[in-house]
Every structure is written in structure tokens, then in C-alpha cells.
């Protein structure tokens, strides 16, 4: 049953070719234009910025894809489609879990080729390590889906939702070690970024792909806590909304 819901979200994404093409091009431009050129500017650093950024680009891309599930739910709610979906023969709890997982699974399917490309560029060829890195980003994507669903359920104005999602995406990616090392971030933000799930996911993947990078249980704990909090919150808000009547 839950797979039917996940499959529907996958179909929705596949039927949105513009989003897929756009995010792919954005990823490639980030990697082969921005990262290459900024690496030249940052040539005096004691590490290869392109390698550092390549992992962050995958993590920020899956973050961005996972946020789309909230946009889908908001649109379904606005168009009255949510009421129809709730009339289908699923338990409401199953519906909630299926949607949150759907957001994460489609993000995972989408970034798998990117992860393989980055592993290749970084000279890392272990299938087990690549599979492990995909599990890490899946955990992150499930938590981000929960965050996105939470926002979709809390905000009613379309323009405001649009801006809030963009802000949440910007904040989760920028206030993290996805695209620059923590040591170079402004001092007051470093503690915040240290506890960011995007930082944890990036650090774990870097420790797998790149020599000289380390991560431990601590990063995994942050990631799982983030997942638990936002998967729970997103599910709770969605559950409350669907039990509370139609969108006004």
C-alpha cells in the first residue's frame, strides 16, 4: 500500500520534466562552472575546493529536491485535490508516512547518477561506500521532506509559502558545511552550522569519498535526530490537517 503512494509521488516528479532537467543543469553548472572557477580563485587553500564542493553539490541538490514534496502538497491542498486523495482507500496514517517517504525516495532516485558522477570525479570507486553515501542522503531527504510538509501545512498564503520554502532551502544549505568549510564561516554561525543535518550528511559522505576527511557517530546521531523531529512534525501537522477538514 505504502509503495502505491511513493510510486504516485515518483510519477508526479517524472511527469515534471522541466524540474528534472532544470535541477540537473543547475547541478552540472554548479559543478563545472561555479566550482571550477571558484577553485581557481581559492587555489591558496590547503585542500582541493572542487572535491569539497562536489560532495556538497549532491547534498544540496537532494535537499532541494526533498523540499518539492511540500510544494506538491500545498498545490494539492489549494486545488482541493487533497480531499480526493483522502477519499481513497488508505488509512490516513499510511497516507502521511507514504508522502514523506515519497519525497525522500524520489530525491534519492534523482541524485543517484549525480552521486556516482561525483564519486568518479573524486576517484572513489567502492560500490559499498557509494551505497552507504546514498543511505545517508536518503535519511537527510526524509527529514527535509518532513520539514517541507510542516511548512506546507503551516502556511496558507501561496506567495508567502513560495518565499518561505526558498528561505528554508537557502538557510539549510548555506548555514552548513555543504559548500564551504565550517572554519571559514562567520564565528557566530559556526555552532549552528555544526548541528546542521546538511553539515552532518556532507561530512559523512566526504569521509567516505575523500581522503583526509573524518566523521563519526556524532554526525549520524544529528542526522537521525533531525529525521525523527521533522518526520514526526511533518506527519503530525499533515495528520492534523487532513483530520481537520478541507482547505479554506
Amino acid at each position: 500500500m505504502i509503495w502505491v503512494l511513493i510510486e504516485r509521488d515518483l510519477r508526479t516528479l517524472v511527469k515534471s520534466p522541466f524540474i528534472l532537467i532544470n535541477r540537473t543543469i543547475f547541478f552540472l553548472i554548479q559543478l563545472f562552472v561555479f566550482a571550477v572557477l571558484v577553485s581557481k580563485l581559492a587555489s591558496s587553500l590547503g585542500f582541493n575546493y572542487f572535491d569539497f564542493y562536489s560532495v556538497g553539490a549532491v547534498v544540496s541538490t537532494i535537499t532541494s529536491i526533498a523540499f518539492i514534496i511540500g510544494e506538491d502538497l500545498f498545490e494539492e491542498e489549494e486545488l482541493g485535490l487533497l480531499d480526493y486523495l483522502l477519499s481513497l482507500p488508505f488509512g490516513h496514517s499510511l497516507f502521511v508516512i507514504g508522502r514523506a517517504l515519497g519525497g525522500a525516495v524520489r530525491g534519492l532516485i534523482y541524485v543517484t547518477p549525480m552521486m556516482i558522477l561525483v564519486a568518479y570525479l573524486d576517484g572513489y570507486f567502492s560500490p559499498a561506500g557509494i551505497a552507504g553515501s546514498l543511505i545517508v542522503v536518503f535519511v537527510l531527504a526524509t527529514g527535509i521532506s518532513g520539514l517541507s510538509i510542516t511548512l506546507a501545512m503551516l502556511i496558507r498564503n501561496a506567495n508567502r509559502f513560495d518565499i518561505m520554502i526558498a528561505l528554508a532551502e537557502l538557510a539549510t544549505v548555506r548555514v552548513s558545511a555543504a559548500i564551504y568549510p565550517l572554519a571559514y564561516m562567520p564565528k557566530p554561525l559556526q555552532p549552528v552550522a555544526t548541528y546542521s543535518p546538511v553539515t552532518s550528511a556532507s561530512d559523512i559522505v566526504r569521509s567516505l569519498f575523500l581522503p583526509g576527511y573524518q566523521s563519526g557517530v556524532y554526525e549520524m546521531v544529528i542526522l537521525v535526530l533531525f529525521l525523527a523531529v521533522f518526520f514526526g512534525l511533518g506527519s503530525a501537522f499533515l495528520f492534523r490537517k487532513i483530520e481537520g477538514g478541507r482547505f479554506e
Partner: protein
Amino acid sequence: MEGSSKAIDVIERDFRVFFADRYMLVIMFINFMIDLGVSGLSLGAMIRNLGFSYFLYIAPGANLITATVAAFQSGRDVWRERIIQDTQQYLLTLPVPKNTFAVSRLISGMLRSMVTTLPGTIVIALLYGLSFPYFLVGLMIMFVYSGAVAGLSIAAASLANSLELFATVRSTVQVYLSFFSVQFYPTQYMPQIVQVVSNFNPMTWAVQSFRALQAGTVNLALFAPLSGLSGVLMVAGFLLYRRTMEY
């Protein structure tokens, strides 16, 4: 005279819609501050071997990207009127000539962007230590650049029949403006093809115009291509929007 009064009415309506949610202005300023205060400072701390402050180099770009986001909110309004709310036909029955209506929407998009980015422009002026006359020139740069992005956003709103397509065009434009311009890297670091493409990017000329202000000059050689590109994009936006009003 009557035409300009009707234009003002249309612009006023757009401003009322815009200011109905002041919260959005705050969020957009936070967006700008994250761009400048997090990404700008972090990249600035990483890149220190260029002989100039990289943070100050990329600072105007953050404000110009905020202007782009604000301009695309105008496009989103136009798109919602056409596709979701179905109010465009009603708006066209109002006693405002269609050309006046279309031009007014573009101008209101420019003004809304400029107002949204006013706090950011002040921050940049303070960072650059600009005098008041130069600050006014900075506002003029923001206004002309806003014309380019308002034109693009109204063109996208006129062509897109789905939110997905509109959102895709919006993010593609943002990628083009940010990564294929001199916002992040000086021209000499770019491959030849990116250099050529960046010349047709309003961000390149707007950000360079701001940097010239920091150096103490108002460089018309930078302002002219910005004005030219803005003019072309505004005409494109106008023509495409006008086309949606005809059967």
C-alpha cells in the same frame, strides 16, 4: 495626462497587493542577509589572494539576486491572474488601455523590486562607503537592472501555462544571472565561452557598475549596456504580455 493617471492606478494596485503581506519583505531581506552575511563572508574568508576584498567584490550580487526574486514575484502575480485566479479578463475590462496596462505592470515590477532591495542597497552603500549622490546612482542601477528582471519575469509569466514551467524559468534565470556573469569571478578567470555569454547578462553590467561606484566613478560605459539589455528585455516582456491579451 489621463493615461498617466490610469498607469498610476495600476501601479498603486500592484503595490497594494505587494504590501498586503509585509512579512514577505522581511523574508526577502533575510534572504539577502544570508546571501551576504553567510555565503559572502565565508567565501570572502576563503579567497584572500586576489589583492582585493572578495567579500566586497561579491556583495552587490546578493542585492541584485534579491531584486530578481522580487521581480519574479511580480511575474508570479501576473501568472496567477492568468492561470489560477482567472482575473486577467476582468482586469482587461477596466477602463485602462491595454498598452498602458502592460507598461504599468512592468514599471510596478521595477518599483517593487527597487523598494524591496532598498535596505540591501543601503547596506551595500554603507559597505562601499558611498556618498549620498553615489547612493542615488546605486538606486538608479537597481532600478534599471530591475527593468531587465521584471521584463524576464513578465515574459515567463506570459509564456508559462503551468507553475512548474514558470518556476523552472525563474530558477534558470537565477542560475544564468549568478553563474554566467562576473558576480563571483573576474572575467580573466572565465573560459572564453562564459566570457562571451556574460556580456549578454544584465547582472554583469549592474554588478560592475556598483564596483565602479566603490572605486569612485560613475562609469557610463558600464551603465549603457545595462540600460540596453534592460530595454530589450522589457520590450520582450511587454510584447509577450500584450500577446496574452489578444485572441
